[in-house]
């Protein structure tokens, strides 16, 4: 296991370095001088421009700039936003909990509904329920979520008036910053339940929008994995022993069917981030997805490059952990390349 861990680690580090090169290089290729953009319409003397360039280290040769970027990133210094003049790591850690809460909520929805539906479809194979679930899940899988979000707003916010359209919570509630998760922190505010209800009602629609594709994938994966397991000899043996059908399906069957499903869930980190960019844009969710889109539009170099680096690092880390968990659960994989 240790040997496997080290070998995987040896693959992860060059990938991470590659990401730093790509993040750095891509940003330099964006046309438009960030300093001129910053000065904007007002204009400034050449001296002031040169001085600003020096402040942001943009006057140094590219390899030096890259070296500084990696060296600082390694110790957790991701530079300062050109627009807000605040450290990037500060802006990131302010917004990351919002994205994490949204992503976690969406994934919980997807698992909560996807798993049982997938199991049920497998057990009732070729029934009307199975067919309609598989059709629905293929529709969910093909869903343009930027449109799906708008439709949810149209139905639940505009027509029914059930949920708010944007933001994380009503401004009326003062939520203390404790975990960064409003669903938890709202209980510590003076309004307790009311604040929680407000936070939840803000979270539901973006959660559904973001959770739809994972839900479809999990339902389909659970079904096919479950179908495979249902045909195994040990399932028949368990039934023959006289165990109840439900027990056999959920204890003997689902447990074994879960391994590939868990892998798929683990590898969804990238899907969730991509979805978060679109979902946060639609619902004005103050997370890292919208923050990055905004920074691209404002040519905020340090934010884009460190933001891409941080997000990719998270995705790489999650995939790494999933790989390890998988290898731990299934020793045969450790030897395989």
């Amino acid at each position, binding site marked *: 296991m240790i040997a496997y861990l080290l070998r995987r680690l040896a693959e992860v580090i060059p990938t991470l370095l590659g990401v730093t090169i790509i993040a750095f290089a891509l940003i330099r290729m964006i046309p438009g001088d960030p300093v001129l953009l910053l000065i904007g319409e007002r204009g400034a003397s050449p001296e002031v421009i040169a001085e600003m360039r020096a402040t942001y280290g943009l006057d140094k040769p590219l390899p030096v700039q890259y070296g500084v970027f990696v060296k600082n990133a390694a110790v957790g210094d991701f530079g300062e936003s050109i627009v807000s003049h605040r450290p990037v790591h500060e802006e990131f850690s302010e917004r990351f909990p919002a994205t994490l809460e949204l992503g976690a909520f969406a994934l919980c929805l997807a698992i909560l509904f996807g798993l049982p539906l997938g199991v049920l479809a497998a057990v009732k194979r070729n029934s009307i329920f199975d067919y309609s679930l598989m059709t629905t899940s293929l*529709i969910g899988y093909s869903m343009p979520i*930027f449109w799906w979000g708008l439709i949810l707003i149209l139905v639940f916010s505009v027509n029914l008036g059930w949920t708010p359209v944007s933001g994380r919570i009503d401004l009326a509630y003062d939520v203390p910053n404790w975990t960064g998760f409003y669903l938890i922190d709202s209980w510590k505010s003076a309004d307790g339940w009311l604040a929680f209800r407000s936070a939840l009602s803000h979270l539901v629609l973006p959660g559904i929008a973001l959770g739809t594709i994972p839900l479809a994938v999990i339902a389909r994966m659970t079904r096919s994995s479950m179908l495979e397991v249902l045909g195994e000899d040990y399932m028949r043996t368990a039934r023959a022993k006289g165990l109840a059908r439900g027990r056999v399906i959920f204890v003997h069957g689902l447990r074994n069917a879960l391994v590939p499903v868990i892998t798929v869930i683990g590898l969804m980190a990238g899907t969730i981030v*991509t979805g978060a960019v679109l979902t946060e844009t639609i619902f004005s969710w103050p997370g890292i997805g919208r923050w990055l889109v905004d920074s691209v539009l404002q040519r905020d170099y340090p934010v884009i490059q460190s933001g891409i680096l941080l997000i990719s690092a998270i995705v790489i880390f999650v995939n790494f952990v999933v790989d390890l968990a998988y290898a731990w659960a299934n020793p045969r994989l450790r030897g395989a390349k």
Partner: protein
Amino acid sequence: MNSSALKEFWYFFSQNRGAVVGLVLVVLFVLVAIFAPWLAPYDPAALHDGVFSQPPFWAAGGNTTYLLGTDDVGRDVLSRLIYGARISMGVGFMVVVFSLSIGTLLGLLAGYAGGFIDKVIMRLTDILMALPSILLAIVVVTILGQSLTNAVIAVGVVVIPGFIRLVRAQVMIEKNRQYVVASGSFGAGAGRQVFINILPNTLAPVIVQGTLGFSDGILNVAALGFLGLGAKPPTAEWGTMLADARAFIESAPWLVTLPGLCILIVVLAFNLLGDGLRDALDPRLKK
């Protein structure tokens, strides 16, 4: 493919009702795209005076002059959707051609050459896959400038790694098969081995991936359009139309509903078709 293989393929393909539905829908959209100028009742860019935000014919206030209504500046929605099919099908096609050709070449190279070249290509693939796709596409568009062509390139770049991995894996299996080894011992050069012996035998999964690439391409280019990074506004691109319509979600909901529905149906059609092709082309499932 000879005629009996074709018959066999069609037999397995037509067993899958979803796949047939997907095929019919795809053909339908292709026809709409080709014959857009004849099918569309109006010029998609024409501004019709005095009919701003008119609802579709079935809603109160709508009529059959503009079947699916008009948008906020008086353009016919149906005509724009029909021309949008042209853009989306074209976009899907270009994304697939771009990513499939580059991805297949690199995959062949990595799989056949092995060693250092393989390591470099695979490491690059890993890096591209570690970057969240939409972010990579957004940055590429920002570098190249906002246009439909650049959105296609950006999305193509994002799709390439999938093709590289797929082709490489196939080549690694095929290159040790007896027919390839035998051909090599008769003096076949690398070019002949790769393009004449190995490539045709890797095509089935590439075709499937290519079909699914259509839906990825259409979806992602529309997403870029929606974020304001794809086709420029007057263009009748579905994602861009959706972005324009956001402001009118309360007053003119059909402007939001219809373009998105088109995207959903096209993407769904290609996914159905891809699934069907996979089942029909995968020999393991034919038993």
